[in-house]
């Protein structure tokens, strides 16, 4: 009877071997402690190193700042110069090249047709008044105005506002159109 009881106790003893658990936990704790100490030391020294490099960088920058302060006037002059160039470019970008526009319009007006009035507004809307020998010239003019092939300046939406036949059998026409640069 006694033997049976002892056997059962021995099995339980195997399941909860405190000595082994204690040994494993000591090993685990030791390893953890070593890792902790190594990593703390590394992090500590790295932190010091990083702090030192930050300090040296700050000192370096202070030196540059000091050097730059000697160029303060030059910097202001240069930046003002760049900003002024921006302003000039802004105005230049608004500019319309009337020389090219007028030249282009003149070139598109056929012979036997006289231009006697031309108005251009800032939206590049153009009104012209022309005098024609006969009505066929009007067709040539419209064809010329519509022909934008290989042209830098594109004429769009030509509209004949009026055509008047005068007593001398010539015609007067008023046209409008808009134009743009390619």
């Amino acid at each position, binding site marked *: 009877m006694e033997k049976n009881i002892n056997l059962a106790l021995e099995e339980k003893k195997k399941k909860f071997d405190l000595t082994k658990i204690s040994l494993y936990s000591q090993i685990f704790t030791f390893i*953890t402690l070593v890792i902790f100490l190594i990593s703390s030391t590394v992090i500590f020294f790295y932190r010091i190193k990083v702090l030192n490099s930050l300090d040296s960088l700050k000192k370096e920058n202070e030196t540059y700042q000091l050097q730059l302060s000697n160029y*303060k006037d030059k910097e202001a*002059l240069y930046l003002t110069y760049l900003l002024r160039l921006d302003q000039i*470019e802004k105005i230049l970008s608004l500019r319309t090249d009337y020389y090219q526009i007028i030249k282009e319009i003149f070139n598109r007006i056929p012979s036997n047709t006289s231009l006697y009035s031309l108005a251009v507004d800032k939206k590049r809307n153009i009104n012209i008044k022309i005098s024609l020998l006969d009505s066929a010239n009007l067709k040539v003019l419209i064809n010329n105005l519509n022909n934008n092939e290989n042209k830098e300046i594109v004429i769009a939406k030509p509209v004949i506002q009026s055509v008047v036949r005068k007593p001398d059998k010539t015609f007067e026409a008023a046209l409008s159109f808009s134009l743009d640069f390619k």
Partner: protein
Amino acid sequence: MMKQMIRKIKDKDILAIAVCVITILIIIILTKFFLTSWTNEIFQIQKKIDNEEKIKMQQLSKLTHLKSVDDESVKKYFNDFEYILPRQKNISLLLSTIGGLGTASGLSIGSIKLSPGVVYPNDDDSKKNSEVIETINFNLALDGDQEQIMNFFNLVNNSKQLLNLININLGVDKENIWHLKVEAESYFAPLPKPNINQMTELSVVSKNQQKALKQIGNLRQLFNVSLLISGSSAAVLNQEPRNPFLTY
């Protein structure tokens, strides 16, 4: 006796396990409070270092750039700016520019009309918004022939003072004299005030600014030339367009 021995061993093991658990807990706490804060601090410092590095690079490039800037040539541009885009309403400069255009193109100026508004003799630039470009509108009536009119348009593009034509009206009379009416504007703006601080970047001249410089370069060449040469010969025309005003 055996039982006591076993109990002692068990107590020793339990004590060892307890010590281990406590040690682990301490390590966890230390890790939480010290290592984590150190690591975070290192990250923060690293960020500061990156920022300082950035500042260092900027300052270095700024220094190099500033050392390479030729003060004298920049100052010369400021002399040009006084004509191209005056700081104040400079009516006499505008009138002389218009007169110069008339002379150089060969056109006769019928009338000049401008309404510059209030003109302060001692304009205080510091009170003005440096970003604003102000305009002076003016109207011109000019007479001449086709070549002179075309010269005029070309010269406006190359005028030393920036001018922009808004509306034009061109007509011809029976004597084949061209009459040009122009609505135009000239500009003035106080010198811009740059915001200079440690982080102000000193850029090289941008593409747009290069365009302006190119124009100024052209103007430098043309300005003297166009004013010296009078009349029709002042034109820098490539090709003469057909004269559609000639009556058939």
